[in-house]
């Protein structure tokens, strides 16, 4: 009888499939993050989104990073999201307007576990990501930096260590901690396939250099940046 009531009430609310994590996502995250696709199709539409899209989170983030970050979030994009909305003219150059940047909502350890689980179930369409696209291997940090900064000019928009590099994009010294290698390869190869209006250009990076860059991002992520900051 008890069971029957439980099943009946689950059916009545239609929540038989929704988990606690999904419920938190809908209630506390959907106001800023898109939980279903597609990505923004125009610049004004993009600017209305208050946080990065999460509808392909399961193909993008590393599970263990996600759970830890949601409990203790720290800034990833030095100029916020979107950089356009958080800069002001300065004496010499445009500056980040720190007064417009707000801390990210924090989750309890228990909620973070549920939310991470729910997010990891949201996968990208199969044609966007290929398992094993990153071929592995290693590279010295100095050669990696040459490929990233000198040959491909990626440093113009990305910090390769705290307070060194461009500010409009996310810091990349933690990129391989945050994101799956196959996603990194796919995103660098064609950022517009993920987000047609992303401020990141397709630099037509040669395939072997994409592999080298992801190795470099792995090398950077090995440092203990929290300690150095």
């Amino acid at each position: 009888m008890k069971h029957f009531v439980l099943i009946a009430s689950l059916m009545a609310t239609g929540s038989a499939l929704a988990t606690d994590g999904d419920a938190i996502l809908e209630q506390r995250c959907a106001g800023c993050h898109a939980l279903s696709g597609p990505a923004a199709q125009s610049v004004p539409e993009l600017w209305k989104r208050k946080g990065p899209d999460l509808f392909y989170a399961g193909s993008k983030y590393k599970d263990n990073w996600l759970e830890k970050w949601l409990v203790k979030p720290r800034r990833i994009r030095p100029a916020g999201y979107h950089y356009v909305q958080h800069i002001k003219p300065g004496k010499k150059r445009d500056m980040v307007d720190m007064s417009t940047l707000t801390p990210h909502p924090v989750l309890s350890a228990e909620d973070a576990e549920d939310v991470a689980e729910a997010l990891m179930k949201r996968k990208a369409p199969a044609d966007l990501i290929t398992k094993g696209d990153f071929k592995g291997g290693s590279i010295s940090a100095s050669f990696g930096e040459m490929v990233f900064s000198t040959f491909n000019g990626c440093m113009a928009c990305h910090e390769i260590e705290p307070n060194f590099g461009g500010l409009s994009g996310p810091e990349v010294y933690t990129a391989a901690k945050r994101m799956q290698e196959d996603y990194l390869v796919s995103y660098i190869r064609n950022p517009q396939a993920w987000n047609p209006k992303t401020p990141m250009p397709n630099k037509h990076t040669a395939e072997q250099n994409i592999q080298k860059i992801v190795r470099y991002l792995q090398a950077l992520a090995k440092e203990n940046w929290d300690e150095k900051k």
Partner: protein
Amino acid sequence: MKKNSIFPALLILLSVFASAVWASEAEDNYKNFCWQCHGMTGNGMGVNVQDMSVQPRDHTSAKSMGGRSDADLFKVIKEGGLAIDKSVLMPPWGGTFSDEEIHDLVTYLRKLCQCR
């Protein structure tokens, strides 16, 4: 007679409206994609420039923007700095924009520098 004159007037109104839309699209594109390096006023002093080894072009200067044809500007936006023997730091935007959007950006740049 009176009836007939409404139609051309409407057409004119429509085309004024349409070109305003194009202009604002080019402006949005300039903000979202070019501000990061070329700056909020287009003077080449964007939020990213501190650690860049080559300074982005000052788009408001007739001196540094003059002497380039529309075709030159189109090429550097679509294919990037390397395509015209300039810095790799000027990215190629062919993966981001249609040719039409790039033409509109060229028109927008001409307004910024007030030059030909």
